């Protein structure tokens, strides 16, 4: 599952959830209704295959989407419990340096694991870009005001540890704003005179997914994803952050996970509402159903990923197809890490 969610989702088991009237559901019938998987061979899923589908072109030029479907040999509740104990930093192929949940209200100490090591090339890149920001260039996802604050902070002390603290401060302020105002508290990125709003990017992508919006309507409405920025979610959110290597660039992000129980299954929305670079924002929707097949029981998981990134605007034709193919491979890598963890640590 999603890098952020791998850590944050672990609190889901104990989280307060909103429940809609209970009813048993057939995951395969449900999948047909809203997903790109019209024919699902359960046998293949049970054997461990991860089904994947690259999404069609969006009208939103910075967006791309994929869908996945896979089997987890645990009940939906146990899936969440496993996430409680799963640390993505243990899976080296995911290249996650650090991640964690955030308190409510957020505390500066929540980011104590954020350390920048200049010996690590991707982290060195972030250090250099931070120093570039201090010299007035806007190459990271920041507001002008944040860039000035970061520059002032770095001028006091430009050691890697100090720069890490500057970033922790910035993340703390963004996370606090989100906790108070939801998507309405998310500041835009200012690049060369343009204002890019992560919330707008997320909504633009999701609004093109008619069937998916219909399937996840209660969850999306309760989280303010379909409404206005001022709406604060009525669901209990779980906040988190992570620090990882994205395309050989160290990137910090902030995210939130919402969970909604729908009868015998669950729906989740995992949003990256801030990313320091490489991409603008991302949303992952999950639907998790219990499944019984002979002696085997477990969960069928559908996930849809929606990513907004600056380079996508210029990625067309075969390059865009390849982008989607590799995006799927990277997400599969993440799913396999989680499934391996279940197998190796029963």
């Amino acid at each position, binding site marked *: 599952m*999603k*890098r*952020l969610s791998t850590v944050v989702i672990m609190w889901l088991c104990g989280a307060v959830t909103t429940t809609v009237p209970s009813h048993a559901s057939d995951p395969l019938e449900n999948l047909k209704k809203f997903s790109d998987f019209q024919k699902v061979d359960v046998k293949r899923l049970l054997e461990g295959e991860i089904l*994947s589908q*690259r999404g*069609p*072109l*969006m*009208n939103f*030029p910075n967006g791309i989407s994929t869908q996945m479907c896979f089997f987890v040999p645990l009940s939906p509740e146990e899936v969440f419990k496993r996430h409680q104990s799963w640390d993505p930093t243990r899976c080296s192929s*995911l*290249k996650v340096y650090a991640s964690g949940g955030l308190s409510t209200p957020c505390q500066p100490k929540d980011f104590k694991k954020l350390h920048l090591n200049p010996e690590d*090339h*991707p982290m060195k*890149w972030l250090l250099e870009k931070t120093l570039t920001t201090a010299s007035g260039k806007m190459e990271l996802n920041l507001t002008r005001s944040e860039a000035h604050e970061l520059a002032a902070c770095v001028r006091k002390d430009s050691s890697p540890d100090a720069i890490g603290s500057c970033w922790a401060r910035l993340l703390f302020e963004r996370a606090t704003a989100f906790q108070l105002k939801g998507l309405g508290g998310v500041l835009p990125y200012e690049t060369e005179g343009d204002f890019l709003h992560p919330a707008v990017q997320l909504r633009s992508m999701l609004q093109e997914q008619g069937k998916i919006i219909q399937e996840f309507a209660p969850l999306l409405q309760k989280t303010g994803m379909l409404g206005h920025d001022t709406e604060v979610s009525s669901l209990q959110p779980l906040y988190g952050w992570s620090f*990882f*290597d*994205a*395309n*050989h660039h160290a*990137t910090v992000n902030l995210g939130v996970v919402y969970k909604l129980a729908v009868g015998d299954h669950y729906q989740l929305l995992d949003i*990256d509402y801030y*990313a320091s670079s*490489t*991409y603008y924002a*991302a949303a*992952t929707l999950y639907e998790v159903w219990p499944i019984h097949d002979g002696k085997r029981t477990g969960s069928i998981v559908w996930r849809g*990923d929606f*990513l907004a*990134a*600056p*380079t996508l*605007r*210029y*990625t*067309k*034709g*075969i*390059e*865009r*197809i*390849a*982008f989607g*193919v*590799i*995006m*799927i*491979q*990277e*997400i599969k*890598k*993440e799913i396999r890490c989680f499934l391996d963890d279940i197998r190796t640590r029963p």
Partner: protein
Amino acid sequence: MSRNFDNVWETTSRVFSNTFMLPMMLVVMMAVPTGTMAGESLGVSHELDVELGYAGRGVTYQDGRNVGSIDELATDVKYVISPQITNDLLLRVGADWQRFAFDTSQTGALPDRLQHVSAVVGFDYQLADQWVMRTEIQPGVYGSLAQIGWRNVDAPLFMGAVYLRDADLQWFFGLRVDLRSQYPVFPALGVRWKYADDWTLDFQLPKPRLEYDVNDDLQAYLGASVKAGTFVVGEHFGDMHGNPALNHATVDYTDVRLGPGIAWKVLPTLTLEAEGGYVIYRTWDFFDKHVKLDSHPAPYFQLACHARF
């Protein structure tokens, strides 16, 4: 979510810098109703590649006999428009003009220029989860454009498939088919491997390279470049060069260049390249007439512009 797939744009634009298609498949694709074509601007992509290079004088021999020093001006302009037909299929239609102009020798059987003007017709297709292919055919006139006839018409076929293992490793399989060439079928295997944060081994014909990322916009590389083509010379070429057997003869031209270069991403959609080095191998092979000319190494300099929009 993993976000480690951002360098795909660069990867794939390099991967498919030289490929093509089967006529039968084209007919099938042209039959697809236009209503299925993606209507947004993202559904149509454009590629424009312009290259201009000069190679200095290299002592040239014809079957062991010195026929003088030859220099060369090479030009290549290629434009392709690629509309998306379905989620997995892209059509490719365009044109290509390639020209080699030589400072000819009076004593050797050297054409003063070899060039082709061709259409580009092909498709890109996602074959399977991790496999993407391109097929492209370039029907056109190959040889002296002063005398255009059926003998000059050729249609080399290029096919390529890529196995996208992940963001840092891709394997390439290619095939060039040109029935007029001495080697009608030429297979190729390549790999693109970003083995370190700054270093990429991009070993793909015709331009294998070892690349170093200086920063996000600037790349330095050490690379080779193979320029090759099969052409038909004019009907009086042999008469003018003292060997009537070479009238309307077929010649395989090949040159191999080696040298460092830089690539500067001026805009997200535009990359400029400059490189220099040596043409380490250059040959004109009238293979079916058993006449062959080759040159000693000579320095070269080349500028290129690649636009994707």
